[in-house]
């Protein structure tokens, strides 16, 4: 791909990016969120059309005008979120775009079985409904779909995000065998260790621009991180200004049926407690259960030594507990609603007069002031939240809890899907909140974030707390050890 440029509504998403990948190699594409990786791959697969640039395959200039054309050229993407029909069988899903008018079921299943056997998944039946098999197997189905089209270029977009470590191993062996067959593989991931294990070359993008292509053997993780963020990690986190006080929040013996058991922890005033662990360790579920957004078995929650009722979000919010959900678009903000409505949602009662009339003047003032305090970039408090950038949407979601005057806040992956600049600002907001005495519980899958922000961290693995680390003990090594269960 040569000199690719693409702009969305005047904002450059890609600026003169050039990217080479060879047959039979696994090439990593890295960069922060918003660096332009997905845009580049969407151009390659014909989802977007580039403004400028050229794509060459085997030295031949090709034009990829739509996804169907990309498939003809042998380009396939395996997206993070699978494009599978849950109610159809494995075989139907694989051949969905090439079904004959009259389907020969036996032939279809045989072809599917051959593909599955090649990958070493003969235990998966072509007749199973896709909705009933595990996420890892669903990914296998996606891969089969790509292989059945004789793909020459295969893009994996964060394939391991949803997999357990066993499944990751299996996936890696598939990817390696594909490489040995001469397929060109482009691998997008945030996980440094995976990239170092799997890929021979790494191309780094930053803010829509090409930074560098390096051989994996020539760089260290540190150098790579510097390429990606363009600065030292330590510069990202604000100096700690909060002073830590008494224990204000305690959760004891919390269990979530089938997910987590006997979770107990406490947080102090002005303290940021990191919650680390692998995806699927049950961190989000436990916090949802504490907040009342999910059923829990037993356990108690105390605020300043007094037991509080948190069996529904309504009761939790009334007790001064708040939660910034992991999935901002689905659970965090009302995309169609203005910033104002979003920010005062949980404490509308403060602005009420007779007959439930809202005091708009006071509301406007409060929202404007809070917006300024978090450096919200918008055209005004009536701008729809959905038209803001990811980082600013997240700030709106945080404003809701600031205006809700919560004393204990759960931040679930607070910087997921936001760019580096906004990340730094969100860290600053968290530090400010802590300085005001708010106790913060921060779930994060990014280890630098846990290390940089937490005063203390607990690590979860398979639904249990496997350890607690003080500020001094917080190192990547210790975190990995506890989250993977290494002794």
């Amino acid at each position, binding site marked *: 791909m040569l000199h690719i440029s693409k702009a969305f509504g005047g904002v450059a998403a890609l600026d003169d990016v050039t990217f080479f990948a060879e047959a039979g190699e696994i090439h990593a594409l890295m960069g922060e969120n918003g660096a332009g990786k997905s845009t580049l791959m969407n151009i390659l697969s014909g989802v977007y059309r580039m403004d400028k640039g050229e794509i060459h395959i085997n030295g031949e200039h090709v034009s990829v005008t739509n996804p169907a054309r990309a498939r003809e050229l042998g380009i396939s993407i395996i997206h993070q979120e699978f494009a599978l029909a849950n109610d159809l069988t494995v075989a139907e899903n694989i051949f969905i775009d090439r079904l004959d008018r009259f389907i020969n079921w036996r032939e279809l299943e045989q072809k599917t079985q051959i593909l599955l056997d090649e990958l070493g998944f003969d235990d998966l039946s072509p007749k199973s409904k896709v909705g009933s098999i595990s996420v890892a197997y669903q990914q296998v189905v996606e891969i089969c779909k790509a292989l059945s089209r004789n793909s020459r270029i295969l893009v994996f977009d964060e394939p391991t995000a949803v997999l357990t470590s066993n499944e990751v191993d299996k996936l890696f062996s598939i990817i390696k065998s594909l490489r040995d067959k001469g397929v060109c593989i482009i691998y997008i991931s945030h996980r440094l260790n995976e990239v170092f294990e799997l890929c021979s070359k790494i191309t780094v993008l930053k803010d829509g621009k090409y930074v560098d292509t390096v051989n994996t053997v020539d760089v260290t993780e540190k150098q790579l991180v510097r390429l990606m963020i363009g600065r030292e990690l330590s510069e990202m986190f604000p100096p700690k200004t909060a002073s830590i006080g008494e224990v204000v929040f305690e959760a004891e013996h919390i269990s979530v049926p089938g997910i987590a058991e006997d979770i107990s922890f406490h947080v102090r005033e002005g303290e940021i407690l990191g919650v680390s662990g692998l995806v699927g360790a049950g961190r989000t579920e436990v916090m949802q259960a504490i907040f009342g957004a999910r059923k829990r078995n037993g356990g108690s929650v105390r605020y300043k030594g007094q037991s509080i009722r948190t069996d529904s*979000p309504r009761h939790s919010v009334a007790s001064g507990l708040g939660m910034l959900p992991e999935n901002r678009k689905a659970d965090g903000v*009302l995309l169609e*609603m203005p910033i104002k409505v979003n920010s005062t949602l*949980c404490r*509308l009662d403060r602005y009420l007069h007779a007959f439930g009339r*809202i005091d708009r003047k006071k509301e406007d003032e409060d929202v404007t002031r809070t917006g300024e305090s978090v450096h919200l970039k918008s055209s005004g408090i009536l701008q729809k939240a959905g038209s803001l950038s990811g980082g600013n949407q997240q700030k709106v979601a945080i404003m809701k809890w600031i205006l809700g005057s919560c004393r204990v806040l759960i931040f679930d992956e607070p910087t997921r899907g936001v760019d580096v600049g906004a990340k730094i600002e969100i860290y600053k907001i968290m530090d400010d909140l802590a300085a005001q005495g708010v106790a913060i519980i921060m779930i994060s899958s990014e280890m630098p974030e846990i290390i940089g922000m937490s005063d203390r961290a607990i690590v979860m693995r398979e639904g249990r707390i496997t350890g607690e680390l003080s500020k001094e003990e917080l190192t990547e090594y210790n975190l990995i050890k506890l989250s993977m269960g290494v002794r």
Partner: protein
Amino acid sequence: MEKTKFAKLGTKEFWIQNSCFVILIVLVIASAFLSNVFFTRQNILNLLRQCIPLLIMSMGMLTVILTGGIDLSTGSIMGICNMVVAWFLFYHFGKSVGGLVISILISMVVGMVFGLLSGFLVTFGRLAPFIVTLAISQIARGCAYLISNAQPIRLNTKEAGTAVLTAFGNKSIPGIAIPWPIPVGVIVVVIFFLVMKYTSLGRIIIAIGSNENAVRLSGISVTSYKIIAYLISGFTAGLAGIIITSRVSTGSPITGDGYELDAIASCVIGGASLSGGVGTVVNTVIGVLVLQLLSNTLNLLSVPSYPQQIIKGIVMIIAVLAQRQKTSS
């Protein structure tokens, strides 16, 4: 440069929100040209009076649609409320004004109970609003037939209470010569406008339609607000049923048949989104007027009712297409 972008966006949104105004104005002009009786005081008042039951029902429908639900039972609730009020007036309370009040209250309670039932089934029963209200619609219609033995009740307009109701439906306010139902409709619309725009109830109902999960996680009881929405819809459907009764002085089990679809159509022509969170009171009023104007004009031109339906359907498609094209671009 950024400023021009926002200005552009502004005009575009202006068009999306106001395409139903344009359609209304076009219809008014067309009607004025096509029929020389259209712009008479008598015809305009007639048009407005006719649209009042639909207008009131559409307000309740809008409330439910804003939460992301739908209420298919309103036509039947209108029917049962018409039956109940007529039955009580005819057999028990028709003789006095106090009796009239009691009959109306009982009838309204019946309407609200059906609304409440839908609300409970949608929230606690976790059933799809479409199915629940379709079932409630059947139940309400069945009850109406049961009460009436499938025979209409013709009210005795000589009794004092019944006479007041009939006068309300057929006479005008002395002095200004405006039919009584019109100010009632206006009051209902104004109340809904104020509630949706200025109160927490309105804001939270719209917020629920926009993103129910986020609202729940903000510590708001989504369940109670949804139930309130269906309750309101039952209330407005009942009120519509009573106003119809006052007009026709008859209790008939088929009253309100198909009204719910006109109410939904009004909301949609007014730009409301069936997935919730989008829609305004003013635009829904326009939607009602568009539908009513259409049948009024076609009646004036003595177009038979079947071609009328076809034309109505076409206008609906045009209205929705106009909004869609502008949204997607």
